[in-house]
């Protein structure tokens, strides 16, 4: 047995492992008490309070640094490693991915409780408050740090976040009582960082735990029931050797005479300050503070020398230097000297700093607002039970995977980026037939007696003259006349329409439509079918042939739409085109999507059918010069800036955005989105567009067209006059009318 720590870790009950050494403990011991019993002082020195108020007993426990060993129950096999004696702990090394790959941080349990009264602190004031509340029939939860329930913070709600021995506890309380008691004052004097200093209460606890204090000397109020030699007067210096205290020097207030008393342990009864961090944190949350936490206590005498803030190492000299440079109030002094900014958030030093300021100004400054965390938690503990961002999947997700698709997230949906060969996918659309999964499109059914009126107000185009069975491309504008979304308006009957929206804009468009209809008080029923309908786009010169095979004999002409069974699946067939080729969008119940997709793939096998992903689709649309709202547009894109003025009918008396468009039409406006062509490969999307050594715009879309044999670009020019020739990627580019491909639209109508 040469590796002792390994043996202990394997389950030698009743022992901790401290810096690789086994340390026995007794039931009820904290790590700090167990260490002290063995003669090991936790932390890097300074007064030990055993009450969780300071940062003097910190260690790395089970891989987590900055753990207060006095608040950590000893447990068999627990690994305790001291912080380095100089400098700071190292950042932990990277853990294996496997340990963190779970989207939910499930390894930390989160429990929730709702109670009438949550009481923080299990001392006499807390228990009294608990009894009173219980007598009046209310449910009560007492949270006592000593019993392992550490309150991290109080948040609006109110909600208390608590670390327990089992994990995290979120307490929803109707009333909060803070009964956290008082913290003992730490000494500020040269040598206060030596080992062997304990507070009076800590001495009592150690005595009760059977820990020997050696030759103990009591300064100030002596501990009860602890054998200690009293040393009268105020402690002015601690003397020691090798980091351990050997004597305390006290001074008599009257005579000024110093007395040196040799000691193994100095027990300090220097009074108390309210333990009011949580009370000062609550802010807007109503709570009551009872017991010692609420009581004004006399401040310690102003410190004159030594370390004031043990966490940050701030000395009295630092306070003086900062003060003399103008940092003459608590908030500025704290930030400039770093006092109160350490692990204990001022627990050990705030009363000293306040006293020091009071001595200078004659006024005692109010303590500063506290911020979470009171008791610290790790990021994992904070993240426990976090909600995962959910991404939507279409009903055809598994089909895409089976076809070898590389999936990517787009508009909060998982979508096929490509199926291995985007260029082949492109050619399938241009020369054969291809399927695209467009289930992600927004789909609203709107109906009712006022539906035409509502749509005329919502959209900038005419709606009333759309005949049943026909459709129209439409922009959706906001009140500023800026393009929010685009899509189709399909009329089903006099009082019933289907509206489509972009995948990314659908959720917002649905809210928009509902809100406005409600605002206007119009009688229109809105049904969101985005998730209940799948949609497959059948596109390419052979799309008509494929649909004939699938049972669609009477095919709607361009911009027409019919209801028909396609491969026995009831579908709303819409004759549109985004790709530039003939296209039929088949909207159908999601539970039939897979069946419909497979049937079309089978029927089209001899036509060379293959599905296309987003990458090919972006190229196809680019050849047609179609705008993609969000990718090509900006926050303030008006229709005329993207050449879509024709989609706005200013002769209409009222529609959302009309007043703004009327106003901005008169402004000097020189932003235009347009097409460019250039030789060679397409420049990177986002490239600056230059003219005369100046940046005049940027590329929003680009594509090396396999069919046209050149680079096609869509992008902005923001300077007047608009240049005919510009420079992109160090090459010349010429402004070109769009569409680049089939400008008359013969193929889409074919």
């Amino acid at each position, binding site marked *: 047995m040469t590796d002792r720590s390994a043996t202990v870790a394997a389950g030698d009950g009743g022992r901790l492992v401290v810096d690789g050494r086994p340390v026995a403990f007794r039931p009820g011991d904290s790590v700090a008490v167990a260490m002290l019993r063995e003669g090991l002082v936790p932390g890097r020195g300074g007064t030990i309070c055993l009450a969780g108020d300071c940062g003097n007993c910190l260690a790395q426990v089970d891989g987590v640094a900055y753990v207060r060993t006095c608040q950590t129950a000893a447990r068999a096999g627990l690994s305790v490693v001291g912080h380095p004696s100089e400098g700071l702990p190292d950042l932990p090394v990277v853990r294996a991915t496997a340990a963190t790959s779970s989207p939910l941080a499930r390894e930390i349990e989160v429990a929730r409780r709702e109670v009438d009264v949550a009481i923080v602190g299990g001392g006499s004031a807390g228990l009294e408050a608990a009894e009173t509340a219980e007598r009046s029939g209310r449910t009560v939860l007492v949270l006592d740090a000593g019993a392992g329930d550490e309150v991290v913070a109080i948040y609006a709600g109110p909600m208390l976040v608590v670390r327990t021995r089992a994990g995290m506890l979120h307490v929803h309380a109707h009333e909060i009582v803070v009964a956290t008691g008082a913290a003992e004052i730490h000494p500020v004097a040269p040598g206060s960082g030596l080992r062997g200093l304990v507070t009076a209460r800590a001495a009592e606890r150690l005595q009760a735990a059977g820990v020997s204090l050696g030759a103990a000397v009591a300064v100030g109020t002596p501990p009860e029931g602890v054998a200690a030699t009293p040393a009268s007067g105020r402690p002015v210096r601690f003397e020691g050797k090798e980091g351990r205290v050997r004597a305390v020097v006290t001074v008599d207030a009257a005579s000024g005479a110093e007395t040196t008393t040799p000691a193994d342990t100095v027990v300090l009864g220097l009074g108390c300050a309210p333990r009011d961090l949580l009370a000062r944190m609550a802010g807007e949350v109503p709570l009551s503070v009872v017991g010692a936490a609420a009581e004004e206590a006399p401040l310690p005498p102003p410190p004159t020398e030594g370390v004031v803030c043990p966490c940050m190492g*701030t000395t009295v000299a630092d306070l003086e230097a900062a003060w003399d440079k103008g940092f003459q109030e608590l908030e500025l002094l704290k930030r400039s000297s770093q006092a109160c900014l350490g692990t204990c958030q001022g627990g050990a030093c705030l009363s000293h700093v306040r006293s020091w300021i009071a001595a200078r100004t004659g006024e005692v400054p109010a303590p500063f607002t506290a*911020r979470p965390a009171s008791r610290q938690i790790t990021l994992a503990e904070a*993240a426990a039970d976090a909600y995962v961002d959910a991404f939507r999947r279409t009903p055809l997700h598994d089909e895409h995977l089976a076809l070898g698709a590389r999936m990517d*997230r787009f508009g909060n949906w998982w979508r096929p980026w490509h199926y291995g060969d985007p260029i082949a996918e492109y050619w399938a659309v241009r020369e054969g037939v291809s399927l695209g999964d467009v289930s992600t499109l927004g789909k609203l059914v709107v109906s009712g007696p006022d539906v035409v009126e509502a749509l005329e107000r919502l959209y900038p185009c005419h709606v009333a003259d759309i005949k049943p069975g026909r459709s129209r491309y439409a922009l959706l504008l906001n009140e500023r006349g800026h393009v929010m979304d685009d899509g189709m308006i399909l009329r089903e009957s006099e009082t019933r329409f289907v509206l489509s929206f972009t995948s990314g804009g659908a959720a917002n468009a649905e809210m928009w439509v509902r809100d406005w209809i409600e605002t206007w008080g119009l009688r229109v029923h809105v049904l969101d079918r985005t998730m209940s309908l799948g949609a497959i786009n059948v596109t390419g010169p052979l799309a008509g042939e494929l649909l004939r095979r699938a049972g669609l004999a009477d095919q709607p002409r361009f911009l027409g739409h019919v209801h028909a069974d396609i491969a026995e699946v009831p579908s709303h067939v819409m004759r549109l085109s985004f790709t530039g080729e003939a296209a039929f969008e088949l909207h159908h119940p999601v539970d039939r999507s897979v069946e419909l997709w497979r049937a079309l793939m089978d029927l089209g096998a001899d036509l060379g059918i293959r599905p296309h992903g987003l990458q090919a689709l972006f190229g196809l649309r680019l050849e047609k010069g179609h705008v993609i709202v969000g990718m090509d547009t900006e926050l303030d894109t008006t229709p005329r800036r993207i050449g879509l003025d024709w989609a706005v009918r200013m002769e209409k008396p009222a529609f959302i955005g009309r007043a703004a468009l009327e106003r901005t039409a008169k402004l000097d406006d020189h932003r235009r989105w347009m097409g460019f062509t250039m030789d060679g490969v397409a420049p990177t999307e986002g490239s600056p567009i230059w003219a005369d050594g100046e940046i005049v715009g940027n590329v929003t879309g680009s594509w090396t067209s396999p069919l046209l044999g050149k680079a096609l670009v869509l992008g902005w020019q923001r300077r007047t006059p608009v240049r005919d020739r510009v420079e992109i990627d160090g090459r010349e580019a010429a402004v070109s009318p769009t569409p680049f491909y089939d400008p008359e639209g013969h193929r889409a109508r074919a």
Partner: protein
Amino acid sequence: MAVVSEYTDTLLPIRWPDERRSSYDVVIVGGGGHGLSTAYHLATRQGITNVAVLEADYIASGNTGRNTTIIRANYGIPEAIRFYQHSLEMYQRLEDETGAAILHQTKGIVWLAHTEMAMRTERARCLMNTANGAQTFMRTPAELKELIPELDLTGGGRYPVLGGSHHVEGATARHDRVAWAYASGASQRGVDIFQHTPVTGLLRDGDRVVGVETADGPFAAGTVLSAVGGRVTEMTAHAGVRLPVRTHPLHAFVTNDYAQGFSPIVASTELMCYVSQTERGQMLIGAEFDAQPSYSRQSSFAALRSYSYKITRLLPFLRDLRILRTWAGICDISADFSPILGFTGVDGFLVTTGWGTWGFKAIPAGGEAMAELIATGRPPALIAPFALDRFRRDHVLADQGSAGTR
């Protein structure tokens, strides 16, 4: 011999006024970074020292002391890139210029992309940055892993890292020390800084603003500049100026201190969170502002949980670090996410606002430009595009490429 820490020893003295002058050429409302930097640049560049800065609380108590101290210029539009690059370069020289230790560290910033669309955004950012003088380059996942060994390229199995942009001059500096450096430089040259002096109204002479009202009495002024952060709309309402600004809370937190070992700054636009290691050694984590407008500075557990979850997907080593402190600030977010600087349409009343969550990085350039505008009456070219009237002209500066992580 009492030893003073380097941190305190390197502070520069701030002079506080004994009394108020009968009138000031310029009264600046708001003793944060922008107000103090404007005062400093009025004194050092424009020779205008009859200046008062009025701070409602203590200096740098607002967003200047609450932001996440990141200095960068990796914006998406030329106007913003040029302005912030100038500010970034001013920061690089600030210690030399003022003699103050602001603990400036150039460490680079990496913005990670988890989707093809995010890759498109980052590529565009690199091209537009380099074209406008900012140094930002695409990195492959392998290069990112070399730069940030702690990075989990699978993003916790959920946010795979497809690549990222590396803004090599990205930096950090200690926020309140920047404000103090300007406060010291301005006050030593005669600028009066009044703390705990909230402005309650504006003094008018006809249509012109001629001073401010405070609880301690009026301050007459030739020019009044609102450099208020948070609640700016309340301030400008005194002059009848409506701003396209909403105020939202933003949260951040730090862990305890660790030995230096994490560089560069890492951000994800999609996850809307970022992390850096402070000069003290804390891991500093910030994220997106709350969707709900509010003036509350209360910390929110929902934000803490969400930020912790997101950042540990990318950097699992953070899981076991303990959180020292969380806090919140309130941010003035303009309708196009770009700042609003300059004239308000009311004579004698200027504004610098809309800094959103990114005002810290703009402190040197924003103050320098506002000082020039006040002194000359003409907006310098660097800030001319950021004038308030751009909203009326329908010519906003939407920087969607940078709208994610601010």
